């Protein structure tokens, strides 16, 4: 019994510790990287020093930030479209149960292949500009969001549905007042995972054909044998990805307060 208060007292400290350790880990990792790259005089095509990469990012900041804006636009627009499609499909299946037998296998079949496999076709159909990236990102995001939302809708307690029915609620009222809030935690998990997928798919598709964006910058830098630039673009992409992930995670914690 005496353990309980200790645990409670220790909890915030452990949280602080975790953050400190995380920062410490990153600092050590960067220092080791810098030390190895400088100490062994590694050529930039093997591993450039972190300081060189940061300097390059600063020097080429306008190119990189423009590219990051490009990629983020593609990722966010595709993400929103994909999330809407995913949620809509799950809603349709829930409101019209017979559609489940048609929609679920079809969605699974389309997604049993890595999304990137569709990119040549999508580039052919939608061109090299942004629309093809919207489609690719939406394709990747919609399936994840669809599955997690559907799982959330199905998780609802049968007795709660019966209670609302006894109040005279129809399917739509039950969806809005019960299924949607019940599904939110699972939906949010799907949405959070999808942020990183959205950026990855946007960058990969850019590498296969684009007029701009971080993937395009990486591809061009490889052609010009500028590996510091490749790393610079990777750093920026990683930061953009983390920011997107963090923003959605923050929204999730604000909205789903009861968990």
């Amino acid at each position: 019994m005496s353990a309980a208060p200790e645990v409670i007292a220790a909890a915030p400290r452990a949280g602080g510790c975790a953050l400190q350790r995380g920062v410490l880990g990153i600092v050590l990792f960067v220092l080791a990287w810098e030390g190895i790259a400088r100490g062994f005089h590694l050529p930039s095509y093997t591993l450039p020093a972190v300081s060189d990469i940061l300097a390059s990012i600063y020097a080429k900041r306008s190119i990189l930030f423009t590219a990051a804006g490009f990629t983020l636009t593609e990722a966010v627009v595709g993400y929103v479209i994909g999330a809407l499609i995913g949620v809509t499909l799950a809603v349709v299946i829930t409101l019209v149960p017979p559609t489940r037998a048609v929609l679920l296998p079809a969605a699974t079949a389309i997604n049993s292949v890595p999304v990137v496999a569709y990119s040549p076709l999508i580039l052919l159909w939608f061109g090299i500009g942004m629309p093809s990236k919207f489609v690719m990102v939406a394709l990747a995001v919609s399936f994840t969001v669809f599955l997690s939302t559907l799982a959330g809708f199905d998780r609802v307690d049968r007795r709660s549905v019966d209670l609302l029915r006894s109040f005279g609620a129809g399917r739509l009222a039950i969806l809005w007042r019960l299924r949607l809030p019940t599904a939110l935690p699972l939906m949010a998990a799907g949405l959070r995972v999808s942020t990183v997928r959205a950026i990855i798919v946007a960058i990969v598709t850019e590498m296969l054909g684009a007029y701009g964006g971080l993937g395009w910058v990486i591809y061009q830098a490889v052609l010009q044998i500028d590996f510091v630039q490749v790393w610079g673009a990777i750093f920026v992409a990683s930061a953009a990805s983390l920011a997107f992930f963090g923003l959605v995670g923050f929204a999730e914690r604000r909205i789903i307060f009861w968990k």
Partner: protein
Amino acid sequence: MTIGHSGLARLAAAPDAASASSAPAGPYLLEMKGLSKRFGSVTAVSGFDASIAPGEFVTVVGPSGCGKSTLFNIVAGLEEPDAGSILRFEGKGCHAHELLGKVSFMPQRDLLLPWRTVIDNAVIAMEIEGRSRKASRAEARDMLPEFGLAGFGDQYPHQLSGGMRQRVALMRTFMFKRELMLLDEPFGALDALTRTMMQRWLLDVWRQHKRTILFITHDVDEALFLGDRVIVMSARPGRVKLELKVDLPRPRSAELVTSPEFIRLKRIVLEAIEEEAMKSFLASGAAAPQTDAMPEVQP
């Protein structure tokens, strides 16, 4: 013009009209005749007959698994009885699903929505009816003290005790203003002390709100303490084993349970219930050695 006329006529005859509208319907609010329900090879309820008059408090007791919940699901409109069952509500024969939205139903678990405050949980039925959110919230706020929830209106369910959660669920049921209320073991999960407090409180609320209550329980004391009438159900398939009028004076106080009259009624109910409990015990434990099981249950 004609509409105005009939409206006036009704107004003029108002005191009579109220009783007249239910008079041709007979004195009963709900009638069940030969109610049966099978699930595959299991017959949950078979030939259940009972009628409930407006304003009555009827309690239903029975051994576990006697089909009490099936009966409630039918009356709540959630489950359709088998062909041949007769269900009449407000004097008119009807299908079970027509009762959806006409009976206020409270299941065993409180089933409060964790993302809604006490007030918002209480008004959910009114919200579904399409009433103004502001007005129903104000009404709920006024009802809080009566349900022992004063000052807790903006709390979330996880911040409340079990007894309070149950009172929020009851408040939700009361706010869905329907003549007939179905309460399915609402106090089953509470400790004995909270339970007796809640029973007395429920009688107070019932007296003030003048509703008809059908109340399921497996506690004989509770059934007798609350009810105008106790219906004892048989072992599965559920029928009416015994119907007992409880002629104890109201308002009822805690001492009632030790009065000779209460004990006399309790003995009658217990006897009937024991016989049925034995049947369902033997039916479910058919594999167990019966000679050993019998004497253990009998005293």
